[in-house]
């Protein structure tokens, strides 16, 4: 068995598995298994979905964009590196002109 965030995952992915939340999710799954048929089905679905999203890297800024809430613009630019395309800047500029108001 490969340990979460272990060496072998690093060989497969540039971004190692983020296991910040994994212990909580596994604990959650364990509770669901202990509860058996009495377990809340909405919680079962949520646990499975969260486990999947975390494995996909939804919590990881390296995968899901950078950090738009960084303190300075330099830090924001550094967080995104080369991920932003011209289209993103163009849409932002249009929004700056007032084209992103809610109707």
């Amino acid at each position, binding site marked *: 068995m490969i340990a979460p965030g272990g060496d072998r995952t690093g060989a497969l992915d540039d971004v190692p598995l983020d296991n910040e*939340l994994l212990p*909580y999710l596994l*604990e*959650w799954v364990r509770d669901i298994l202990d509860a058996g048929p009495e377990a809340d089905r*909405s*919680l079962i*679905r*949520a*646990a499975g*979905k*969260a486990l*999947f*999203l975390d494995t996909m890297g*939804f*919590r990881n*800024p390296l995968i*899901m*964009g*950078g*950090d*738009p*809430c*960084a*303190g*300075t*613009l330099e830090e*924001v*630019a550094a*967080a*995104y*590196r*080369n*991920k*932003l*395309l*011209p*289209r*993103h*800047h*163009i*849409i*932002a*500029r*249009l*929004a*700056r*002109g*007032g*084209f*992103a*108001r*809610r*109707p």
Partner: protein
Amino acid sequence: MTPNFDLLLEGAYRLAGFRDRTLGPENPLPPTMFSDYVRITSPAEFFSEGKAHRTAVLIKMHGCARTYRDVKPNGSNEREWREALRDYLRSMVFTYREIQNWREDSWAADFLRTLLRTRTVVFAGYSLQDPVVHDTFRTVYEEMARIRRFAWYYPAMQDAGWTCWSVVVELALRRMVAALWKNRCSPAPPETGRTLGSLRASKAAENSSGQIEKLWAAACDVPTVLFQSPCQTGTKEVAPHAVQIQLGGFESGAATQNARTPSPLLHLALAGKRCSVASHGLAQTAEPTRPRNGRNRGCLRRTHFGPAHGRVHSPRSAGVFALALGRGDRKR
């Protein structure tokens, strides 16, 4: 409005000078009419934050990684965290079944339908190949076509193996160009990656046919942007699906002073090599709508495509044209 979970648009908003109204620090840039932005990722946020004053709204209709990231266990009450995560995950459209159900019970689907019915829609970087969203567009535009007696949805292009929606609304386009012109002194995106200036220069340099240069020349006196670069050059294959946007005041450009010169608009619109209608050489024409009940509705103009006339009927029109092309079902 974006279906993406990622935070790229938020980053571009920050770099354009916006301040995150809920989370961000003070904005170091001078205040402007729209200085803040807010991210809407759930129905609750839609009603609590969506009407903020002088705030740009970014609606993430399938959810947001940032909001998901912010739901963290606090250590003391694990049950509360689990229920909070469950409640937010209902707003994240991810699995196949959720995508199938999205059009039925989603606040974002209703909002998208409202946008399609009431606004000019510009698709940016979106292939329209998502069958559920595709179906939403199709349903709304067919409904509008029945009511308005002219087609917003072009079955001819679909017959050719392509699906095309194009909506040109003169007044909205002019307002867009005017706003860009007015705000051209606003802070430009910093030099991270390819900025508009470098994009413009590189496109002009790499195109040997001179077509792109003509486009830039036609729109040189207003802020000009060109999405992607799939203008057809010789036998070069163009992108199978693309969104192309040209902003510019073509009426002041030398190219449109000559009535026999096709508008740069058409070069953009018809750049898709695989789009069979492009080979027929279509022309865009625009004419004002008729007054109804003694009042000129005015803001909408009928736009249709027909055989090439060799000229554009309204050389003073133009500004922005958005064309979204995607592979039609028959090609797949």
